[in-house]
């Protein structure tokens, strides 16, 4: 714990009063509140072409939306709260598994054993248990529903209840952190600067609302034994969206749309 960053207050600019801090934080909170009131944690299915309305008059993006629409029929938006990758990835993984009992069962077994792995890595058992219990509780509830459509509706309900949804996000963050730490020799090459893999996990993976990068995705894929294809849509040149499979060479079962600092779910 001694390696935790410590510091001094942001008072270097003496002309500003500290009330400036309060104003900035109050504004941040207001923005967060507006986002949470307008965008559900995980949205309903909608056609990919609905993206066009966001980019009217923007030829680069419109061309890319067209390209995307040729490859994917529909999408689900997720709330841009910094947890979007983890929420989208877990939702899409489970949604697919609900249609395949056998795969769901092996996923369930993997999840069941994951607590011991985390405890062995030094996570505190009693804080961990909260998240593990909720995670398993959700998986059990889904497993008990025979009809696939009913199970998917339940998944959607659960993921839009903050109390459950955020617990699922925390648990996947912890599993991702564990994966990074288990294979720290490999992942350390992807971390810039002096930080150790453990520091990186404490600062960028385990805290809520911190955005995900390539390294988070690689570790999360590995933790859930799932391949993902990410479609990148940005202002870069060309009329097509570039795609990237993680881990490389996998057969992706989850498809995500990436727009600068945000992930949504895509459906073929």
């Amino acid at each position, binding site marked *: 714990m001694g*390696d935790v960053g410590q510091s*001094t207050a942001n008072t270097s600019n003496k002309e500003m009063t500290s009330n400036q801090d309060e104003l900035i934080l109050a504004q941040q909170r207001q923005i967060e509140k507006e986002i949470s009131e307008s965008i559900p944690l995980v949205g309903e299915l909608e056609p990919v072409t609905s993206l066009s309305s966001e980019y009217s008059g923007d030829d680069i993006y419109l061309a890319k939306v067209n390209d995307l629409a040729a490859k994917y029929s529909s999408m689900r938006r997720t709330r841009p709260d910094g947890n979007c990758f983890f929420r989208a990835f877990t939702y899409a993984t489970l949604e697919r598994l609900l249609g395949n009992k056998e795969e769901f069962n092996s996923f369930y077994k993997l999840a069941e054993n994951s607590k011991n792995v985390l405890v062995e890595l030094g996570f505190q058992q009693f804080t*961990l248990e909260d998240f593990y219990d909720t995670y398993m509780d959700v998986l059990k509830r889904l497993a008990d529903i025979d009809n696939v459509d009913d199970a998917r509706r339940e998944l959607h309900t659960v993921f839009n209840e903050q109390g459950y949804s955020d617990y699922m996000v925390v648990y996947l963050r912890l599993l991702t952190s564990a994966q990074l730490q288990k294979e720290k020799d490999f992942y350390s090459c992807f971390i810039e600067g002096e930080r150790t893999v453990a520091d990186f996990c404490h600062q960028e993976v385990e805290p809520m609302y911190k955005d995900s990068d390539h390294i988070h995705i690689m570790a999360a894929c590995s933790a859930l034994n799932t391949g993902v294809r990410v479609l990148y849509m940005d202002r870069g040149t060309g009329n097509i969206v570039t795609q990237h499979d993680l881990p490389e060479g996998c057969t992706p079962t989850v498809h995500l749309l990436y727009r600068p600092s945000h992930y949504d779910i895509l459906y073929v």
Partner: protein
Amino acid sequence: MTSAMSPSERRLQKELMSLIKDPPPGVSVDAEQAEQNLLQWTIHMEGATGTLYEGESFQLQFKFSNKYPFDSPEVTFVGSNIPVHPHVYSNGHICLSILTDDWSPALSVQAVCLSIVSMLSSCREKQQPPDNAFYVKTCNKNPKKTKWWYHDDSV
């Protein structure tokens, strides 16, 4: 008492029991007070042997919101003895990244206590933060309303 508990109260109750039963060395919680109000605890902390704070004792106040553990606890030193330390302001505010930016719901009161013990123990020279006078005069009562700049020095 158990049936109407919110998730944050359940979690705090669990943490309180664990802290009473198995506290880190030099740390103890005022159990009676915490049981009366789960959202505000007082924790006693002894300066560790062999450090600059040996023989001193401190009091920490923990305040929790109903969004705990998603919201970090508000933690300050209180009482007559505030440690003189480069990251502790004389009003009791503590500059420690896990209390704001790096807080994770998988951390706990115990993890915060261990972190503060370690912060005190690694101190080489007792001195106040350089901007103490200015900060104490202008800051909000709640340290979570300060935007802290964290730099990883090893003090």
